[in-house]
């Protein structure tokens, strides 16, 4: 009992009496521990945060009707969507395509959920505004040029089931005599620039498209942007094709394949960087500790001369080191979290998940490094004859 009391008293007294030097050592340990916990936290969060950025490439899964089914409809799409966890859905946009005529020219109209399309295709560049109300449309750049329409112009679209069956002579069909023909007026709200096929379409809300086609509702394809790894996506494909036989889910290979390739590289980059930084920082902490301990050779010599055993001296130094390591490690885990949070907020505008397990890991790692760093110089001091040590060199 007495021994332990004395031990603790010696450690704390030595730490307190040599305040300035101990502060230097503590600072070194805290910096090392900060980097350890901060970088590890970032490393674990990179795939999630970066994956989010890759959603900018747009939909990574589409639903199409299976060959033997009657097609997609609201019910079976809802059913398929319920298989996917809500937290992973970044955007869902159903599409239906119809050919209509504007000034006797055939144009493809896509009915969709505008809000959903905004999320599944974040790269769409819209000049003007996104349509938000009934009767408003978004027109592709090429079609806009072809029809020479501008923002806020009004265009009239004609849908006729008959004209479609006979696409070669649309002009010969007299609209006034065609009872099936539906005419509707739309206001151009925005012009769409994508550099892809979308530029030759006209986009409108699904309700408008259904009205234009005489209230008949159908869905041709559903685009989904899911924040999930390729394995998870494959699991969803299997699950949905089993549960909802009317729907065939397909992965957009271009997006999923490339994402896996690039993301793996990015993660291994952060991993290697973390390893290099940690390795160097650990050695840095160790050398600082060694410098602080080497300075106390005289003290070791004096204690030896007074009759202390090597073991008790080494134990005491390690005790001091472990205590410093624990305090520095704790400080470092807190600072590391603050650093990781700051980085995450700056880079990804989102918070980082605090990993509780990292706190004990950081503390134990700091204690181990510090203890190991203490042993070498203390050993060399205890091995030497106290008289020589006390004399200096």
């Amino acid at each position: 009992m007495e021994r332990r009391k004395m031990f603790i008293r010696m450690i704390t007294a030595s730490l307190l009496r040599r305040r300035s030097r101990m502060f230097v050592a503590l600072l070194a340990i805290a910096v090392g521990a900060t980097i350890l916990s901060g970088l590890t936290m970032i490393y674990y969060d990179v795939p999630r945060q970066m994956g989010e950025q890759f959603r900018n490439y747009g939909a990574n899964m589409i639903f199409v009707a299976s060959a033997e089914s009657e097609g997609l409809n609201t019910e079976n799409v809802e059913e398929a969507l319920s298989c996917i966890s809500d937290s992973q859905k970044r955007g869902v946009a159903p599409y239906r395509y119809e050919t209509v005529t504007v000034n006797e020219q055939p144009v493809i109209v896509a009915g969709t959920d505008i809000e959903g399309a905004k999320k599944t295709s974040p790269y769409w560049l819209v000049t003007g505004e996104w349509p938000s109300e009934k009767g408003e449309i978004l027109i592709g750049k090429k079609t806009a040029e072809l029809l020479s329409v501008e923002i806020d112009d009004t265009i009239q679209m004609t849908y006729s089931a008959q004209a479609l069956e006979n696409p070669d002579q649309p002009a010969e069909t007299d609209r006034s005599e065609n009872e099936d023909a539906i005419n509707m007026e739309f206001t151009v709200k925005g012009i769409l620039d994508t550099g892809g096929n979308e530029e030759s379409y006209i986009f409108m809300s699904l309700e408008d498209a259904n009205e234009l086609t005489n209230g008949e509702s159908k869905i041709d394809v559903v685009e989904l942007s899911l924040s999930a790894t390729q394995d998870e996506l494959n699991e969803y494909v299997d699950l949905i094709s089993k549960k909802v036989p009317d729907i065939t889910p397909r992965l957009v290979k271009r997006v999923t394949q490339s994402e896996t390739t690039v993301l793996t590289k990015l993660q291994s980059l952060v991993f290697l960087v973390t390893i290099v930084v940690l390795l160097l920082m650990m050695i840095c902490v160790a050398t600082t500790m060694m410098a602080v301990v080497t300075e106390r050779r005289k003290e070791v010599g004096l204690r030896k001369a007074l009759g202390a055993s090597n073991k008790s001296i080494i134990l005491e130094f390690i005790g001091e080191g472990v205590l410093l390591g624990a305090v520095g490690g704790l400080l470092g885990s807190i600072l590391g979290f603050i650093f990781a949070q700051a980085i995450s907020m700056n880079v990804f505008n989102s918070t980082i998940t605090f990993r509780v397990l990292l706190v004990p890991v950081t503390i134990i790692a700091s204690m181990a490094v510090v203890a190991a760093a203490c042993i070498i110089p203390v050993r060399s001091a205890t091995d030497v004859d106290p008289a020589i040590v006390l004399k200096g060199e």
Partner: protein
Amino acid sequence: MFLRMVRGALFRQKGKMLMIAFTILLGSSLATAMLNVMFDVGDKVNKELKAYGANITVVPKENSVIDDIYQVEGDDEDNIKSAYLKEEELGKIKTIFWAFNIVDFTPFIDSTVSVDGEDVTIVGSWFNHHLSLPTGEELDTGITSLRAWWEITDGKWLDEQKQEDGAMVGTLLAEKLNIKAGDKITVSGKAGKKELTVTGIFDCGADEDEQIYTSLDNAQYLSGTDGLLSSIEVSALTTPDNELARRAAKDPGQLSIADYETWYCTAYVSSICYQIQEVITGSVASPVRQVADSEGAIMEKTELLMILITVLSLVGSALGISNLVTASVMERSNELGLLKAIGAKDGAISILVLTEIMITAIVGGVAGYFVGYGFAQVIGNTVFGSATEMKLMVIPIVSVLIVCVTLIGSIPAIKTLLRMKPAEVLHGR
């Protein structure tokens, strides 16, 4: 005498000085490695993102939409020609201002042919085309790299250098016509007929699954469009768009002269497009937003992430070094006290200590630079499979950092020691 004292200190206290040099070496190698990787990460990630395919498409100005919709068949020669790009002008893409940023470019020609009585779109392109440019550059390009996401379900990629009459068939079409790898198919186009050997079946989850891909020459022969192209896909390394680039993309003519020059001489996707249009007659080059936009976003994030990690590790190594320097100066309190006791001036003592430490720092710093450079190479080779470029800018940054950190670490410690009375110091507080 001064030199002798410095030399004496350096050699007599070899162990301690080596430890300081070693710590500085670690710090400087960390700084060098991180800075090199940071400056290079943009280019490297950009190259990786090329997996998503081309970010610029070049099409003839005569809009193909008009062509499709009115079904204008070429009545006279001029009309046909204006709807195509010229193959002979392809090489000019590599002569634009940002030629070095053009990583890949591949021409395409498509037409409708019939196979077993079925109308099918055939696309002619390069697969693994080897280019020797007039600039002396060698380039391997083609859809083997531009369509890296294609999954070959049967057979293998077409090697156009070995097999002249090869073709690849999309999986949906292959199913429909019951084609397997190794089969021969007879394709008849507007201008000719040819027998092609199917080398592979691909699955890409898009429209291409219903098409046939073959070499450029074959497709041109079939449709009678020798020397003509319907589109070119260009893969370029670009700088993420900013406000200027967005303004310029609308109409470069509206910019002031200074703005125009900044824009033209920056690798924005819009300025590269503009420069391509300048060299290819009758063309419209437009960015593929899906790729160009996303690339910008991801690169920006990665670069920012690396910058912040670099700053974190620079701060770490700076604190590490200054810490050790402080510790090692304090350790020498006895020596400094003795010097003062025998009458040395404060200035002389400071200069002596600083010189010793600076020499150690320079040795450690230089060695650290090379070690750090090695680390950067290891990272570059392991992650991206290519060497990290050596950036000269890193040398001054690291040198300034090391010098500052060493001074900051040693000066306060020397000051504290000098402020004490020699008797106190020698007594050991």
